[in-house]
């Protein structure tokens, strides 16, 4: 006989969320009968301090060797109860959470007996799983105290100085001749009209001040290998020597490209009087007094917004978000430089969000005209002698066709992913979205991490951003990186793939499917086997099912665990539920309404004492069958009707009055 198991089972009421529908007492009693279970309890709120203390006491006093809590989704409280286990000396991985709220009481609130049955299956499965679970210890990886920052634009430079100040060595890798990126070429930036060149110069000074930052310009990345804590980035500098840089983590801050309009897109390329916003900014910042194009002083300027952006059918479905403010601030600068200008803004929506709204305010008060066009009827541009004729259907003036003649047309282009972003994605094996910008794990909760452990994103390589947003994200990534590698050792979840060398003969199938390059081939005695780099493995589990000899499995998801869960769930439950729809665990009766809706009364009259199907009720009452379906479902929910069972043709359920 096997050694006595000592499992603790805690069933949570969730303050009625669970216990109103699931018979928690019956569950407790069923589990108490199980020979493996030493403690079986039901609790008002398992997550409350008192309940946690009670569990800790049980673990210590009863020497529990495994624990399950049957409550809400594991996403909510796995760590809460793992910590309970850890505090009282139980291995946290000898704890399993069973979800009987989202999966039972909430999902089946109209069938409480069945919900209890399902919960009983899940709890038994959970108990089997925890019996088969291994006590795991977190993986510890030694990390290099160095970070490779890819791209020395404003995001990369700012993150580099922050990381250097935290004591990390930084390799700042830039493909261009000098650091600075897009910002370095601009003389005036919104919102404060500061100079981009001055900003970049200041940042370069900061970098020179920090010996911990090593800047490589004209650098090309040739190869990236390794994993969190120990990446190797091979870089050729100036086309000459190839350096091998060793870093604990990598920050990608490669930035964006400006959208280049297609030939003849809004007249682009048809003359010097059609230019993109970056081109116009360069012109605007290059002199003073009248703005001259093709030798003529410009008096009237039109801007067309969203050029190449927000395409319903094209590749760039996104909004570039910074360009509305950029365009308006350039219009304000144009007014400032040359007085007496008439400026027309042909826009789709103005998105001068947040504090940038004041730009729109200033521009409209300066007398700029705003005309709204829709993507379906874009403005038409044609050269007319020395000037340009533009026709636009203004949505705000009853879609009137409006003609204007201007001296200069500025196409407000947005940000697109860099042309080499595909190359960077494949070097670092980081995914790109359908928009071809690099993807984070979670847009809200993990906004600067990639799916690859140790590789982070900063700035506009991730999507269109203003300078301040870019710097925010790269600084977030810098602190995230320091949080992970700063201590020198990294603790990782032990939920990773493991190879049983005895069964493996290295066929390579697992290595081929691994998207994280975590599996490599290695010598094992006289044979070749697969080995898993546990700091690169994220525990996705894709390798396990492709292995022809079952030589690879995933901790926490071993065959033994999964199979035991299935068996336990399939086994007969000790709980005998009452007849379908009856035996409500919480003892609720049908709802008390002062009076039923008129439609219900009509339907109840039609049903009488018989059991009727939905089409039959619809036929008898003359109501629309869809409406009848809705009403019947509601009435069943409120226990006015009960399902009577399916008819002989297996076609329709019939329903009967509850009393």
């Amino acid at each position, binding site marked *: 006989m096997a050694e006595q198991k000592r499992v603790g089972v805690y069933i949570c009421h969730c303050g009625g969320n669970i216990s109103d529908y699931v018979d928690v007492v019956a569950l407790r009693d069923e589990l108490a009968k199980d020979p493996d279970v030493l403690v079986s309890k039901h609790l008002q709120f398992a997550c409350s301090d008192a309940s946690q203390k009670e569990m800790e006491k049980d673990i210590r006093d009863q020497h529990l060797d495994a624990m399950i809590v049957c409550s809400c989704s594991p996403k909510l409280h796995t760590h809460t109860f793992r910590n309970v286990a850890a505090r009282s000396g139980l291995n946290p991985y000898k704890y399993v959470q069973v979800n009987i709220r989202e999966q039972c009481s909430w999902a089946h609130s109209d069938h409480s007996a069945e919900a209890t049955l399902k919960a009983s299956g899940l709890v038994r499965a959970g108990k089997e799983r925890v019996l088969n679970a291994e006590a795991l210890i977190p993986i510890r990886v030694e990390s290099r105290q160095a970070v490779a920052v890819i791209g020395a634009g404003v995001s990369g430079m700012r993150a580099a100085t922050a990381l250097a100040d935290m004591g990390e060595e930084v390799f700042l890798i830039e493909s261009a001749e000098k650091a600075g990126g897009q910002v370095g070429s601009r003389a005036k930036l919104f919102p404060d009209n500061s100079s981009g060149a001055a900003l970049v110069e200041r940042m370069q000074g900061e970098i020179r001040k920090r010996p911990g930052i090593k800047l490589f310009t004209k650098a090309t990345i040739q190869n990236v290998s390794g994993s969190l804590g120990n990446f190797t980035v091979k870089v050729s500098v100036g086309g000459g020597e190839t350096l091998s840089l060793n870093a604990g983590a990598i920050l990608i801050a490669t930035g964006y490209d400006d959208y280049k309009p297609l030939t003849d897109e809004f007249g682009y390329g048809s003359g010097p009087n059609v230019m993109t916003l970056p081109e116009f900014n360069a012109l605007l910042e290059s002199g003073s007094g009248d703005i001259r194009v093709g030798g003529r002083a410009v008096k009237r300027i039109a801007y067309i917004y969203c050029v190449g952006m927000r395409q319903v059918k094209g590749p760039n479905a996104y909004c570039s978000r910074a360009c509305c403010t950029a365009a308006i601030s350039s219009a304000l600068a144009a007014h400032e430089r040359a007085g007496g200008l008439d400026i027309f803004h042909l826009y789709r929506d103005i998105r001068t969000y947040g504090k940038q709204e004041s730009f729109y305010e200033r521009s409209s008060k300066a007398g700029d*005209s705003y005309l709204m066009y829709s993507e379906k009827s874009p403005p038409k541009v044609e050269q007319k002698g020395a000037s340009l004729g533009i026709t636009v259907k203004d949505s705000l*003036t009853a879609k009137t066709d409006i*003609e204007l003649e201007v001296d200069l047309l500025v196409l407000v282009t947005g940000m697109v992913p860099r042309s080499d972003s595909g190359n960077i994605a494949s070097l670092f094996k980081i995914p790109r979205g359908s928009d071809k910008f690099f993807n984070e794990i979670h847009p809200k909760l993990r906004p600067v991490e990639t799916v690859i452990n140790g590789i982070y994103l900063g700035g506009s390589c991730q999507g269109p951003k203003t300078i301040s947003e870019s710097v925010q994200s790269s600084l977030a990534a810098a602190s995230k990186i320091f949080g992970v590698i700063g201590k020198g050792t990294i603790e990782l979840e032990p939920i990773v793939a493991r190879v049983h060398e005895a069964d493996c003969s290295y066929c390579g199938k697992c290595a081929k499917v691994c998207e994280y390059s975590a599996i490599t081939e290695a010598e094992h005695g006289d044979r070749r086997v697969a080995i898993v780099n546990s700091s690169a493995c994220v525990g996705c589990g894709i390798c396990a099912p492709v292995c022809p000899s079952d030589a690879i499995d995933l901790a926490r998801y071993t065959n033994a665990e999964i199979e035991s869960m299935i068996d336990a769930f399939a086994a007969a439950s000790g709980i005998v539920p009452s007849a379908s729809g009856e035996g409500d665990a919480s003892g609720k009766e049908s709802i008390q309404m002062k009076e039923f809706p008129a439609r219900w009364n009509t339907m109840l009259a039609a049903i009488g004492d018989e059991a009727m199907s939905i089409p039959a009720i619809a036929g008898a009452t003359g109501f629309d069958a869809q409406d009848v379906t809705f009403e019947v479902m509601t009435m069943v929910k409120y226990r006015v009707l009960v399902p009577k069972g399916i008819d002989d043709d297996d076609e329709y359920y019939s329903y009967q009055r509850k009393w």
Partner: protein
Amino acid sequence: MAVLDPSFKRTLKRYGAGDFSACYNCGTCTAVCNLSEKNAEFPRKLLRYGMLGMKEEALADPALWLCYACGSCSDTCPRDADPKAYMAALRRYAVARSEPTGLTGLLFTSNPLSIVFSLVLALVLGFFMLTLKPDHVVSRWIFEALPYEIIHNVGLIVMILTVISMLFGVVMMFRRLFKGFKLPERPWAALVDAVKKTIVELISMKRYRSCDNDEESFWRTRPLVTKPWFVHLSIMWGFIGLLVATAVNFILKDPGTQVWLPTRLLGTISGIALVYGSSLAIYYRLAKITSSYKKSSLSDWLFLGSLWFAGVSGFWMEIAVTADWASSLNRIVFLLHTVVSMELVLLFAFSKFAHAFYRPVALFTHFFRKA
């Protein structure tokens, strides 16, 4: 295809429009307006025309004249673009554009010029008035240089020119309003209907009343006789009554010496209405009692002031004549009364007064097009 004229915006600002470029086209003004309706949407649409420089479209829209300037648009505007002031400025511009001499435009856009012009005109009128008596000392030498008949004829010609200007303006306006307009199926029935509706509206101004009775209106709970609708109506009917009385007196060659003569009675009642209405209107504007009265241009003051003065001085004279007080002060008052009244009539087509014939034209057009 509308062609944009960016200078239009600046022009309208000279005519007294506020900071209407601040508008972001939300349409709150049109939503709160009691008078805006389908096919006559204002003020938003008209503001839009102004912001973009769609001059011809703005002038071709009779909706401009459907507004009675209650000011609820300006009260609710989230951008302080003051649609009410904009509409008033656009109406001034429309008057100036319709009148052929260009004088109206000068008077509306330059306050000093407007004052100088009114004073010089008053002096000239006063001088002629004083010198018309053939046996007067001055007249002897003056009529040697400029015979009485010539002056009389010039006066007539000036009057005729005023009428021509007015007619020209009306024709211009009709042409603009009916550009590209297709006749309704039964044009005669539509015509009769439109004329009927226009007359009813002119007599009762019931659309104006709906402004005062708006749920949010300051005037909703105020006594009827203080409501802007009543004030406007009494000025209008007071003036018309006085005009009719004067004309009848002129035709009957009867100066109306008896107090109980019907024309004299009509004149007295109309005079009371005129003085009552214009006094209240002036008080409202001075007290800036609602946003409707917050912003007054010089043309508003000149027009209201002239009406009020003509009315008050008329009563003064009535009392003086009845009591038979012949004093030099009363003579001066009589002179001023005559000069101001004449100026009102002479500048009929060149001042704020012009709305009295542009609005009916626009109303008629609106009703006719709607038919």
